[in-house]
């Protein structure tokens, strides 16, 4: 059992101008961790299709199972769908500033 792998990643969310740092446990999405921490991230379909929960990646890396909710330009610009997005390593910062 590798303790380091299961450690939650710290993710910073900038929502309506305020910075919040949340812990995202392995296997959990950024959206569910944010909601669990009492933050409101707007979302709708929660399967990566509608694009409502997209946030712009300012630094760090994220992976997502589905990105149909993003246009090609948004993928290029580094948007992440929080409902299916997970941090890939430390230092992920996401912002709702579009």
């Amino acid at each position: 059992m590798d303790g380091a792998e299961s450690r939650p990643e710290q993710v910073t969310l900038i929502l309506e101008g305020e910075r919040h740092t949340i812990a995202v446990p392995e296997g959990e999405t950024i959206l569910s961790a944010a909601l669990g921490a009492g933050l409101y991230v707007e979302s709708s379909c929660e399967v990566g299709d509608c694009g409502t929960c997209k946030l712009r990646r300012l630094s760090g890396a994220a992976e997502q199972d589905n990105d149909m909710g993003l246009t090609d330009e948004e993928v290029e610009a580094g948007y992440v769908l929080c409902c299916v997005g997970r941090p890939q390593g430390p230092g992920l910062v996401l912002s709702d500033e579009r």
Partner: protein
Amino acid sequence: MFDRQFHLEPFVRFEELRRHRPVFYVEALDAWLLLRHDHVKQVLQDPRTFSSDDPRWHTEEFETAPTMITSDDPTHRRLRALAQPAFTPRRIAKLATAVEELCESILDEVEARGDRFDLVEAFSGPFPAIVIAELLGVPREDYPRFRRIAAQAVLATRPEPERSVGMRAGQELNAYYGAFLRERRESGELGDDLTSDFIRAQRDGAECSDGELEAMGSLFLIAGHETTTNLINNAVRCLDDAPKLRAKVVADPDCARDLVTEVLRYRGPVLGNFRFTTRTVEIGETVLPAGSRVLPMLMAANHDPNEYEAPGEFQLERRAKGHLGFGRGIHRCLGEPLAKLEAEIAIPALYRRFPELRVDTERDILPVEVPVIHGCRELHVRV
């Protein structure tokens, strides 16, 4: 309060009400109007407290299956999931060329009408109606019929006696789409359209009844064009007093995105949507008991000076953050990518074709007079 003058310029009355009575009971609608951005957001972000499943929609006379806009989770989520894949931003982006071609072909017909016409009848009505017809796979030539029924169906949001007229029209539209659905299913001819997707999903075991599919198709026939028609109408009204902006729209099609965003904030086509409280809840200083009806006014929120500087000014480059033109939260408009695509294509194309287009001041603008829509039944223009 909901007279013709209100429907032409709702923000004038919202402004005064927001200052003095931001949570305001309207007896005729048996609903509390909400006019502040933070109050409207509170409602849209909390679907458990503010239900979309209003008992008003379930009368014995007009019982219909739930739709994603008249239900809460898990029903809402199940129904939305059937249609969501067809409306992803990526799939909608692929329709751009076909939508552009359709727009230009309708404008060719508009050109033959001479120098004065009703924009709604000639262009802003048919264009989105044909797009949604093609998406659903219903015959394009049926659009005048479903536009007529849809215009009546929205009356269901008015007090009686219009409400019953609207509910009956809703049933007529369900029956129209239901007949089409059955025909397609029986013929077995499935194609690349949403109706075929529904039939395949149902065949593959998706949990949805025939009644739910009928109601969903019918919802698309209404929501799929009424809002976009009025987004285009409202854009024309916004641009009418702004010659420099009109010139910019013609010269620089890239500004269409900013233009549509500001129209959605300043003069969006959806005024608001009813919600029903499931518990006692405070909105500002007003305590509403469980079972109260609220009508969060998106457009009033989008003009709230606590949220936007100089909200009464139409500013092309405002790029309003957090505007509520498409709603917010789980019920946020499913058709947002399509509506944006259509409007971003239609508005520059219209002014490229008719650079001198202006609202005809010799004719009255006839507004849509229902409490949930801001738009025009007739908008006469001169070109």
